[in-house]
Each structure stands twice: as C-alpha cells, then as structure tokens.
C-alpha cells in the first residue's frame, strides 16, 4: 500500500516519534495524567451538577451557617492551598536536582494533606453527631446530607489516595529512584485535588 508520505518524511517522523513520545511532543506520563484528571473532573462535575439541580428543585435548603462552622472549613481550604504551594515547590526543587529539599516539600504537602483529612473527619463526626445521615437529617432536606457525604467523601478519598501517592514519591525521591517528571506528574494530581475542592467548597458551603 503506497503512503502519501514520502520516504524522507517518514524517516523524519520516525526520528521525532520513535516510539515512547506522544504526538504533541509532551511526555506520555504527563499526558496520561492529564487525561485521567479530565475524566475525574467529569465525575466530580456530574456530582456537583446533580447537587445544583437538586437545590433548584428543593423548596428550601438548610442554612449552612447554622450547622457548619464556616471558619473551620475556610481554614481547611487555606491548608489545601498551602499544600498546593509546597507541592509546586517540591517540583521546582527536583527540577534543580535538590533531592533533599524535594523530600522536605513533599513531606510538608503530605502533612498538610493529613491535617486537611483530619479536619474533614472531625467535620463529618460533628455532622453525624447532629443527626446527619445518608438517608436523612434533622433539617428537613435529606438531599442536603446525602450530597454532602457523597461529594466530600469522594474528595476525601482522593486526598487519602494522594497522601499515599505522595508518600511513595517521597520515598522514591529519597532513594534517588524518581525522575523529575514523576514528581511533576504527582504534582498535577495534587493540584487537581485542590482545584476540585475550590468548586466543592463554593457549591456546598458558600452558594
């Protein structure tokens, strides 16, 4: 079968794409992580849109300020933002070959993630203590507690998975067994966790 591409062009293509590099000239690990993050964003988006439609369909919605301590959740938001900054610094450090600094910044990110997860757990236990369940709550709108638990639960699972992921990365970097790209890809995941929280925080607590 004759190809429209001449022999010399085919050789150049082969030189540029000799297997292992992606068509956009972006490394495949980064591209694949982005594709995963986009798909994960769709999952969260579907849940948040479900929440918004449910709220539109509800005659009333509980007053969050009477139930949840907004300062507490704002602190959680700030902590997650700080963790994104330390993560970016970790990527910057390994790009410069500073392995020790990288491990320190990864440890700081993990610590912030653990604090966030702990605070989320405290919020959940307070909420459950007030009578909130998946099937109902004392404030008259069952969908309120259901959507709260499902959405923050899914996000919390992402945070916990991220902590494990970063822990593994910190270990690899400490042993000198990780590339800069590996840390960068982990940074993309953690940035995504923060990014989704921006919309969850706005949708569940503010709007």
């Amino acid at each position: 079968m004759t190809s429209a591409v001449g022999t010399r062009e085919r050789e150049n293509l082969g030189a540029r794409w000799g297997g292992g590099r992606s068509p956009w000239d972006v490394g495949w690990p980064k591209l694949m992580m982005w594709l995963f993050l986009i798909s994960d964003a769709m999952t969260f988006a579907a849940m948040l849109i479900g929440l918004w439609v449910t709220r539109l369909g509800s005659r009333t919605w509980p007053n969050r300020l009477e139930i949840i301590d907004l300062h507490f959740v704002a602190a959680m938001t700030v902590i997650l933002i700080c963790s994104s900054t330390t993560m970016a610094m970790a990527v910057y450090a390994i790009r410069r070959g500073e392995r020790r600094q990288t491990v320190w910044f990864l440890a700081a990110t993990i610590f912030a993630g653990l604090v966030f997860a702990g605070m989320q757990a405290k919020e959940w236990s307070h909420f459950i203590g007030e009578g909130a369940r998946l099937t109902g709550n004392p404030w008259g709108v069952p969908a309120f507690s259901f959507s709260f638990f499902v959405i923050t639960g899914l996000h919390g699972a992402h945070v916990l998975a991220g902590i494990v992921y970063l822990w593994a990365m910190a270990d690899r970097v400490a042993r000198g067994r990780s590339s800069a790209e590996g840390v960068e890809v982990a940074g993309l995941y953690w940035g995504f966790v923060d990014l989704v929280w921006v919309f969850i925080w706005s949708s569940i607590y503010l709007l």
Partner: protein
Amino acid sequence: MTDEPQGLPRLYLTAWLALIAITAIEVSLILVFHIAPGLRAIFLIVLALMKASLIGAYYMNLRFERLAMAYIAAIPLILLVLMLVAVVPDAAVLLGRH
C-alpha cells in the same frame, strides 16, 4: 519541554497570596457583606473560576506548557458547560414548581 521563567518560587508565592485573598473575599461575602443572593452567587462563581484558573495555570504549570496541554484541559470544560446547558430544561421545570 516546558518553557519557564526564572523567578518561579516568587510566582508560586504570589499565586498563594492571591488564592488566600480570594478565599478571604469569599468568606467575607457570606459573613460580612449583605448583598442580594443572586449577585452574591455571581461573585462567588467568578471568584471560584479565578481560583481554579490560578491553580491550573501556576500549580499545574499550564501557563508554561505547550498550548496543546492547555487545550486538553480547557476543551472538556466547554463540554462541561454544555452538560450544564443540557440540564437546564429539568432545572427550569423544577424552578417552575415553586
């Protein structure tokens, strides 16, 4: 490869300050200022989009990647808006009920 400027830590710090400031504004909109709910909702949505853009651009490096990467991230967001639009008839019915 990515094409980054020299003062990256400074950039990260600036982004961090901006994110904290926007969060403070969001909390103030709820706890301090008393404005109409509709207007407040618009402000909050705009602020959320600003935060998301900051995180995507600086902490996920999209600002310095090849444009193709930014498109990969941005185009599904357009699809998301379409998904929202698809839900509008249902939402309108629900709104109309009360």
